């Protein structure tokens, strides 16, 4: 696959704060929220339920208008890139209305650590790309001593600034999302059973892939418009695989309790680990397909290993 990115002015301000105890967490979090409220800035949050309750209990923190961002979740386990793309959509709506930068507060929650905590590294790196053009000030609160070392090392590398004693300082350990993910690649999602249908295809058989997907979706009760959109999403991923991969690719299709799942596998090298996370520049004719596919699916997870590049996408009716 090929890297296509047009550098845009980064508007996202993405910082980290480390806390020792719950008391310390609130002591750092409350002033951030108070300052945003005082400035009349919209607030979006993704906090642990106990922290959110404690925050709402503060007399100085009226969070009636605050927007709750989507939680990390999903039938395949959490996907950092899918969640970052979702947050980008949610925050884009919020910033489009706004006159003011949006204040976003995020908190690490070990329930989503998975086997090694790598989800958080992927999420923060993907957020650096997906939210880059949004007028957002995002502060992520991480424990100073998490269970998984990866959580801490990811948090140290993904944030441009660090909040210490109420002051924002540059973070000397910051690395670009590409560098971070080169060292800690996005994990493979949970393995599914044998697919309901599989097909090897080249550039001249994309119409057959589309026909298979359309037949499956319509039989599963997807409406015409939704089916058209999901067919487009699969087509874009499949096109990418045969356009930039070395030769034929494979597509696996499933229908399960959560809806439709497709995986596309090619033997190419994943040049850009954060494919399709950034809105393409209008003058850049390429790189738009995967971005649109992400907008149309409920989740879209890209990962790579020695065998090649893999994409799993999910769509409910």
């Amino acid at each position, binding site marked *: 696959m090929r890297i296509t990115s047009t550098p845009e002015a980064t508007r996202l301000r993405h910082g980290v704060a480390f806390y020792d105890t719950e008391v310390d967490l609130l002591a750092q979090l409350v002033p951030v929220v108070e300052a945003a409220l005082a400035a009349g800035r919209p607030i979006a949050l993704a906090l642990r339920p106990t922290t959110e309750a404690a925050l709402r209990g503060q007399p100085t923190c009226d969070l009636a208008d605050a927007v709750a961002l989507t939680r990390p979740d999903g039938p395949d386990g959490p996907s950092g890139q899918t969640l970052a793309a979702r947050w980008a959509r949610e925050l884009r709506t919020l910033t489009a209305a706004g006159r003011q930068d949006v204040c976003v507060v995020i908190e690490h929650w070990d329930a989503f650590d998975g086997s090694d905590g790598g989800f958080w590294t992927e999420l923060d790196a993907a957020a650096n790309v997906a939210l880059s053009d949004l007028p957002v000030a995002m502060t992520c609160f991480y424990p100073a001593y998490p269970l998984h070392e990866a959580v801490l090392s990811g948090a140290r590398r993904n944030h441009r600034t660090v909040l210490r004693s109420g002051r924002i300082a540059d973070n000397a350990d910051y690395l670009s999302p590409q560098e971070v993910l080169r060292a800690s690649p996005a994990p493979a999602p949970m393995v599914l059973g044998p697919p309901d249908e599989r097909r090897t295809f080249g*550039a*001249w058989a*994309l*119409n057959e892939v*589309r026909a298979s997907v359309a037949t499956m979706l319509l039989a599963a009760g997807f409406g*015409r*418009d939704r089916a*058209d*959109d999901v*067919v*487009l999403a699969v*087509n*874009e991923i499949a*096109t990418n695989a*045969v*356009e930039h991969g070395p030769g034929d690719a494979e597509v696996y299709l499933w229908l399960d309790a959560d809806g439709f799942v497709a995986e596309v596998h090619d033997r190419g090298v994943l040049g850009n680990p954060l494919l399709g996370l950034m809105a393409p520049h*209008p003058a850049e*004719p*390429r790189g*738009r*397909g995967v971005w*649109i596919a992400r*907008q149309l699916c409920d989740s879209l997870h890209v990962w790579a290993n020695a065998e090649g590049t893999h994409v799993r996408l999910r769509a409910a009716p």
Partner: protein
Amino acid sequence: MTGIGTIDEGRVGHACLIPDSEDHLWEATAAFVADGLAVGERVVYFENDTADDLLGRLADDRVPVSGALADGGLLIVPTERTRQLCAFPVPDIVELMRQTICESESEGWPGIRLAGESRELLPIGGLRKLVAYETAVDGLLAQHPSAGMLCRFDRRFFDDEAVAAMREIHPTELVTPALYDDTLLRVTGSAATALRFAGEIDLSNRPQVRRVLETALDAALRSPYATTDITIDLASLRFIDVAGAVELVHAAETFPDTHRLVLVGARPGVHRVLDRCGAPFAPQLEVVPREEGE
């Protein structure tokens, strides 16, 4: 012997069509039906699970058919009946066709056009039966100058030998040229700057689509008489991928200020892709959505 021509002298006769693609098949069949309806003739279509394809293409072509379906101007013989007919001995089939023609004459229709699927004859009687049938039909039509018939021989079902035999029997072969046809996408044009896309645009034909657009713009710029709008009818375009849609939007953006790209009849799915690819922000691009009428 084979004469190549288009059906526009009023006399249809016994014509065959060897389609380049599925979209060519429906383009030619729908035109044959529409021309008959336009001059007030009766049209009888023997369907073989293909009525939806025909009616879909007629709708793409904005040909009103509900009146003709109601008053017997357009008769669709159901699949089951078509297959039953094909199983009859040739003289019986031809006799039934003779009756159909005479009925329409006595009901006062100025002419009758027949079209449909003869491929069901092949598995039943092989090429021998097909030749006998077409030869007998040719004789029948010679006796009834107001009757015409379009026989389609799709190469997916008819081999070279069968196609050659059919060309031998039919006095006329209907040939409708395309600017491009790769069986997935068919591009036709009534003028250099009025094109029609039918089928699907994807990675496999992206370069050809670009070339077609460049040629149309070139023609528009060179001719002092050509209109400043390049129109593409998308009514029969079933799919366009993101790069294809970007290609159309980008083409309009690179047109000189004097020229516009007008896309008409886009289906909802195609329209949504164009919208997602920046069509609303290209001042020299106009997308006219499909009118959902009939």
